[in-house]
């Protein structure tokens, strides 16, 4: 289905208007969405009746647009089969609130980079992923995840971990509640998990992790110690 009408989800009217102009530049028709939403599924449902895709700002709470963030909204749209590009001014959110939903956020653009062409291309990539066609950068693989450190950030428990198949030295951060509840207590330095990770992701902000399972403990009698 060709994309013509694109919902613009932004808590800042000025930013929304700018995104609208950028969309017009590439022949897309912006559909501005009015606040306020408490339920991402209702937002997705409303958008489905007016547009074929969406561009969504990540921080929606400050302007009172919604009680949830943009990554949550994009994930809800993805599940409904609607392509959506997430835009953020703040890459620092990529570690936590965005990482939580990154599996369902195929395209993340910084506000600085987001122009009409990249948004349009991003929407096409989202549509492909909804159809099950992954680029190599987004295709998941089973990978070892070794927890290096567990700490608190903005009142939530976060873990720094190494995914050696992605990078042998660079630790990535993710919220501990990304793991199923039964595994969360096991998250501690030195503990290893297996997870589905897009190990060809170009950057830290592009990584997603899902389907965690506890890796078996090292066997002290396997002759490798």
């Amino acid at each position, binding site marked *: 289905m060709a994309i013509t009408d694109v919902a613009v989800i932004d808590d800042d009217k000025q930013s929304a208007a700018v995104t609208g102009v950028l969309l017009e530049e590439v022949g897309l028709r912006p559909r501005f969405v009015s606040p306020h939403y408490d339920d991402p599924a209702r937002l997705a449902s409303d958008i489905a009746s007016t547009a074929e895709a969406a561009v969504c700002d990540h921080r929606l709470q400050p302007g009172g647009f919604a009680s949830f963030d943009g990554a949550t909204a994009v994930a809800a749209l993805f599940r409904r089969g609607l392509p959506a590009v997430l835009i953020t001014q703040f890459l620092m959110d990529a570690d936590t609130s965005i990482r939580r939903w990154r599996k369902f956020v195929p395209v993340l653009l910084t506000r600085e980079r987001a122009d009409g062409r990249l948004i349009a291309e991003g929407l096409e990539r989202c549509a492909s992923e909804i159809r099950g066609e992954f680029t190599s950068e987004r295709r998941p693989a089973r990978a070892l995840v070794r927890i290096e450190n567990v700490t608190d950030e903005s009142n939530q428990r976060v873990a720094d971990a190494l995914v050696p198949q992605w990078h042998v030295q660079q630790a990535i951060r993710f919220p501990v509640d990304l793991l199923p509840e039964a595994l969360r207590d096991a998250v501690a*330095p*030195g503990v290893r998990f297996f997870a589905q990770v897009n190990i060809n992701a170009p950057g830290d902000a592009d990584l997603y992790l899902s389907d965690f399972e506890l890796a078996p403990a090292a066997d002290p009698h396997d002759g490798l110690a």
Partner: protein
Amino acid sequence: MNLARAQSPEERPSTNNSVGRVIVLDPSSKLAQKTDRSGFIENETFQELRRFGMDALDWMARERVKERERRKAVEKKTVGRGVAVARASLETAVNAVPAKAREEVRRAVRKLEGARDREIRLLREDVQLYRTLGTVGTTTAVFAHEAAKPATQIEKMIGVIETRGRSALGSEFEDRLGQPVRLIQRAAKTLRTFAAFPLRLLQHEKRRTGLVDVNAVVTDMHGLFAPFLADSGVTSDVSLVDPRPRIRGTVASLEAIISNLMINSINALNTPGWGGRRREIGLRSEISGDAVLIRVADSGPGIAGLAVDEIWLPGRTTMPGGTGLGLTIVRDAATDLGGDTHAIAHGELGGAEFVVELPLAVEDR
């Protein structure tokens, strides 16, 4: 443990301090020794024991910080009374001195008190300056986020105006709107760079301890300063050693060193009354034995009116209106990384040259 200490050093012991003992009874031999007896195999039981130790140290650090804050609050309230008591006992002691020498002792005491008062006044000024700079930092962090947004919007919209203008006016666009559009584009880019600056420095992952690629940080910082240097008519030369030297520490510490040295050099080139025409800054990384040397030199007036060693002291500055803290931060950050600092009054480019020597990561020696 050292990682936890580096991230939050207050009231935490290092691995060289003993602060307690954990006695483990292991009747079913859940802990397995390594074959060379150099420790235990990191199995699940060992990991759990380590977690227990780290949790205990975290708890202790939190309690000790709380205790220290309580102690500080009490000390602040009682310090005045303590001084009065000490003064009274000094007076008693002076009165016990033979009358002939008493006046001389009193004069010496007054002299000492005068010197102490001056020292306290200077320390208070330092504290006030640090607080003011701290407030500038926290406020800038908040507003930088907000400032980046409209700067980006201006850039995007002027791009659209250019596209639409060229389409509507054709060849007339360049004559009528070309220059003003370019001026807005350039101004918006400068604005966005300035807004991005504090945000880049504040990225929390930069405060995590690990292996730090020195050349990458030098290049990154130079890139951040580049638009500002270009606008100020300063040419810069970056020369990086190969293979890429790495240190163990945080990106934030290294950035503090490089950015303060660069700001220091830019200020030197802007010294009022100094009429030098060449405006150059040089950044260089070198390897010397087991250390990496980072050199920042400028073509400014050099260090004058101040002993070279004193330039690192807090509050000492040769720049009118300078805080005198930049180089102190450089020295402290270098010390934290296990390194050292040197200053040359007139270096390679004619102006001051600063050399920071940091130990290479063990892996690279």
